[in-house]
C-alpha cells in the first residue's frame, strides 16, 4: 500500500515541508510500523498484516487518510500487488484506489507507457522510442519477450519491462521503527520521599545504559524529566564532557530533584510527590571510548564537578561558567564564558594581533552592559569626537549613571576603533578614552554615535 501526499511532493526540499513530511511519516508509522520512504511525500508499506488488523484494506486506508488529514495534509492511498502498481494507483486515487492482487496485471496493462518516464529509469528516451514503435500501453510493452527487450533496449529497457510485467526490482525495505531508548518509571501512588525516587533513578539509569550499550552507543547528554502529582514538570538537560555513566546520571537526578524540596534538610518533596520519572538520552554517540588531553587542559576533579553540577541543578545549565581567555579588541570580548561541562574554546582566537585593543593592565570590573555616562568639558558641554578624531574639548567631568559626578584628573584618548566595517550588522565605530577621576578610580569610556558609555572600571 502506498500513501502519497501530492502537496508535499510538489513543495520540494524546504525545511518546513521536510518537517511536515516527517510528521506524516510518524503518523503513518503509528498505524503500521514498517514504513519505507519512497520519495518526499510518498511512503509504502506491506498492507496485508495491517489490513487484517484493521478490518480490511478500505478501513485501513480510511484510517490513514484521517490520521494524515489531522495534520492538515491531503493523502491519497493506493494498493496493488507490487510497489510500482501501488504507486500508480495512489497517483490516480481519489482518494483511495485499491487494486486487488489478481487485477494488478490488467491495471498495469491499461497504463500508458509514459508512466515509465516518471520512474527515471528509462527516461524520456525509452518512452519516446516505445511510442514511435507503436507500443502505447504498458500491456503492449509487457507482451514483448523479455530476451528480445534485453537485447534491443539494454539494461534500462529490461528494468522497465519488468515493471510493466508487474515485477518490482526489489522487495520493500521498510525503515525499522526508531528504537525508543528512553526509560521511565511511574510511581503510583505518587512518591513524596526523596530516597525511593533516587533509588528508582539508579535502576532506570542502569536500564538506560544497558539499552545503549546493547546498540554500541553512549550518551553525552541526557534529559531528566520528573512529573509531579499536581501536573507540574521539572525537565533539565545534563551534559558531561566525559560520557555519562549510570552513577553520574543518578547524581544528576538527585541534584535536580533536590531543588524541589521545600527545605534543604527535609526529605519530603513538595507538590505531592513524583508520579513519573523519565530519562531520555538526548545526544547519543557511538561508544568509542574517551580520549583525554595529554596536557594543556585543567580537568575539574570529581569534587569540583559535583559542586558545579549541583549549582547547575539549582540554576540551570548555563548558570555555571568557566572563562576561556581569547582575543578581541574590546575588553568584554576577550573572555568567553563557557557553560560547565562543555567544550572550552574562545570565541575569538587569542593568537591574532588584534590591533586597536586597549593596552596596559586589564580592568578589574567589566560591566556586563555598558553604563550610560556623560563626559563634559570645563564649560559643561558634552565632549564630542569628530569624524577626523578631533576632540571638541578636554574632558573635565564624568557623570556615570547612578553615581555622583566626578572631576576628571587625568585622561587619554581618543583611540579610534572601526570594527567589522565589512559587515553592516556588526560594524561599529567608536573612540575610546581612559579617564581618572578625583576619587582615584579609572574608567574605560567609549563614545559611539555621539553617546558616552562606560565599559569598564579600573579599581
Amino acid at each position: 500500500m502506498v500513501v502519497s501526499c501530492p502537496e508535499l511532493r510538489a513543495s520540494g526540499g524546504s525545511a518546513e515541508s521536510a518537517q511536515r513530511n516527517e510528521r506524516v511519516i510518524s503518523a503513518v508509522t503509528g498505524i503500521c510500523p514498517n514504513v519505507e520512504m519512497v520519495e518526499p511525500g510518498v511512503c509504502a508499506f506491506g498492507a496485508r498484516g495491517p489490513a487484517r488488523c484493521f478490518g480490511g484494506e478500505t478501513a485501513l486506508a480510511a484510517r490513514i487518510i484521517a490520521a494524515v488529514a489531522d495534520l492538515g495534509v491531503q493523502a491519497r492511498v493506493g494498493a496493488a500487488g507490487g510497489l510500482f502498481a501501488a504507486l500508480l494507483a495512489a497517483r490516480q486515487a481519489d482518494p483511495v484506489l485499491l487494486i486487488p492482487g489478481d487485477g494488478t496485471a490488467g491495471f498495469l496493462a491499461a497504463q500508458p507507457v509514459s508512466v515509465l518516464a516518471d520512474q527515471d529509469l528509462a527516461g524520456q528516451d525509452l518512452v519516446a522510442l516505445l511510442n514511435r514503435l507503436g507500443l502505447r500501453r504498458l500491456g503492449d510493452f509487457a507482451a514483448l519477450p523479455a530476451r528480445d527487450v534485453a537485447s534491443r533496449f539494454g539494461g534500462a529497457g529490461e528494468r522497465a519491462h519488468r515493471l510493466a510485467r508487474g515485477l518490482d526490482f526489489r522487495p520493500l525495505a521498510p525503515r525499522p521503527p526508531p528504537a525508543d531508548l528512553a526509560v521511565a518509571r511511574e510511581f503510583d501512588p505518587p512518591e513524596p520521599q526523596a530516597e525511593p525516587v533516587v533509588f528508582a533513578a539508579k535502576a532506570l539509569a542502569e536500564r538506560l545504559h544497558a539499552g545503549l550499550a546493547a546498540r554500541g552507543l553512549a550518551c553525552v547528554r541526557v534529559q531528566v524529566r520528573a512529573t509531579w502529582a499536581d501536573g507540574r514538570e521539572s525537565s533539565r538537560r545534563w551534559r558531561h564532557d566525559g560520557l555519562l555513566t549510570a552513577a553520574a546520571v543518578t547524581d544528576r537526578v538527585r541534584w535536580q530533584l533536590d531543588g524541589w524540596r521545600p527545605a534543604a534538610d527535609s526529605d519530603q518533596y513538595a507538590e505531592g510527590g513524583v508520579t513519573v520519572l523519565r530519562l531520555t538520552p538526548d545526544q547519543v554517540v557511538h561508544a568509542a571510548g574517551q580520549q583525554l588531553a595529554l596536557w594543556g587542559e585543567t580537568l575539574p576533579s570529581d569534587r569540583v564537578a559535583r559542586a558545579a553540577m549541583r549549582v547547575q541543578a539549582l540554576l540551570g545549565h548555563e548558570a555555571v561558567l568557566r572563562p576561556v581567555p581569547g582575543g578581541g579588541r574590546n575588553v568584554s570580548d576577550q573572555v568567553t564564558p563557557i557553560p560547565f561541562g562543555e567544550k572550552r574554546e574562545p570565541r575569538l582566537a587569542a593568537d591574532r594581533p588584534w590591533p586597536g585593543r586597549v593596552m596596559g593592565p586589564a580592568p578589574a570590573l567589566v560591566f556586563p552592559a555598558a553604563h550610560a555616562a556623560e563626559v563634559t568639558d570645563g564649560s559643561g558641554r558634552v565632549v564630542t569626537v569628530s569624524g577626523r578624531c578631533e576632540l571638541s574639548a578636554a574632558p573635565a567631568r564624568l557623570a556615570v549613571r547612578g553615581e555622583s559626578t566626578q572631576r576628571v584628573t587625568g585622561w587619554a584618548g581618543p583611540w579610534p576603533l572601526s570594527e567589522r566595517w565589512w559587515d553592516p550588522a556588526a560594524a561599529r565605530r567608536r573612540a575610546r578614552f581612559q579617564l581618572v577621576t578625583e576619587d582615584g578610580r579609572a574608567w574605560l569610556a567609549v563614545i559611539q554615535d555621539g553617546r558616552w558609555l562606560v565599559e569598564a572600571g579600573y579599581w
Partner: protein
Amino acid sequence: MIVASSGPYSAIDATESKFDNELHEGGASEVMQMPRPYPAASIPASGGGGILPVLPALRGLLPQGGLARGAVVAVAEFRLLCLALAAGASADGAWCGIAGIPGAGLLAAAGLGLDPGRILLVPDPGPVWPQVVASLLDGCELVLLRPPARASAQVRQRLEATLRRGRGVLLVAGDWPGAQVRLRVVTQRWTGLEDGHGRLRACCAEVVADGRGEAAMTRTCWLWLPAEDGGVAAVGPLDLPAGLPAGFPPGLPAGFPAGLPEGHLADLPSGLPGTAPALRAVSAG
C-alpha cells in the same frame, strides 16, 4: 638616627618591616595597636595545612600570612584587591568560585595569577545564593562572593558552619559582620595618564586591614595594585609615582618630601615621636 636591625626577624626585605622592628625595639608594643604588617620572613612561603597562600606582596596584610581555612575575609567592595587575594591560592592549584559578580574582570584576574582554567563563575546566583555558595564551597577551596542581598545572621551562621566543615575560604566583596579579616582600599592613585596622553600603567593603593582576634590590629600596606606587569608588588620608597600631590599620602609632617609610602604612620599613637620613622626612611633610601 640609624638603628641596626637585630630584632627577631632577621631576613626582612620590606622597608616597612624594618620600621616595625625598630619600633619594637623602641618600646612600641602590640597592645598599643601599632599598625604593623606581619613580617614576611616569619611566614612560610606556601601555606601549610590550615592556610591558603596569597601573593607575597599581600602576606603582610593577613595574620599568618595567608587566608586561614574556614575563615571569612571581607573586602569593602569588589575591586582588584578581591581578585588579588584569590590569585595566590589559585596559582597554587586551588579552584576558585566567583559568585554574584557578573563583571569580574577575568583578564585582570589572569594577569594577577589566577588560573582561568580553575575558575567557576556563577554570575547570577539569584535568591538561592546561600545554597549556591554552600555548593561551591564543597568543590572550591576559595569562593569569592558579592552577596546579591544582605545576608541575615542566620544565613551567615549557616555558611560559616559550612566553611568550617569544608575548610574553604570565603572572600566577600561587601559587608560581612562576622568576618575574621576586613580589608579596604583607602587611597589609590593611577599612574601613566596625563592630560590627554599616556595610558594607565599601574595603580598605587593604600590597603588597610583589620579584623577580629588574631587580626584585630590595624595594618596598612602600600601596594602596586596592579603593577605595570599586571601583578601585585609592594611599593618601595624609591619607585613612588611621580606627581603625587603635596600631602599625599596624607599624614606626613609638613615640609617632608611628598610621595613616600608611609600612610600607615598616619595612625601613630600620639605618645610616639612622629618624626623618627621619617628620618629612618630617608636613611633607608
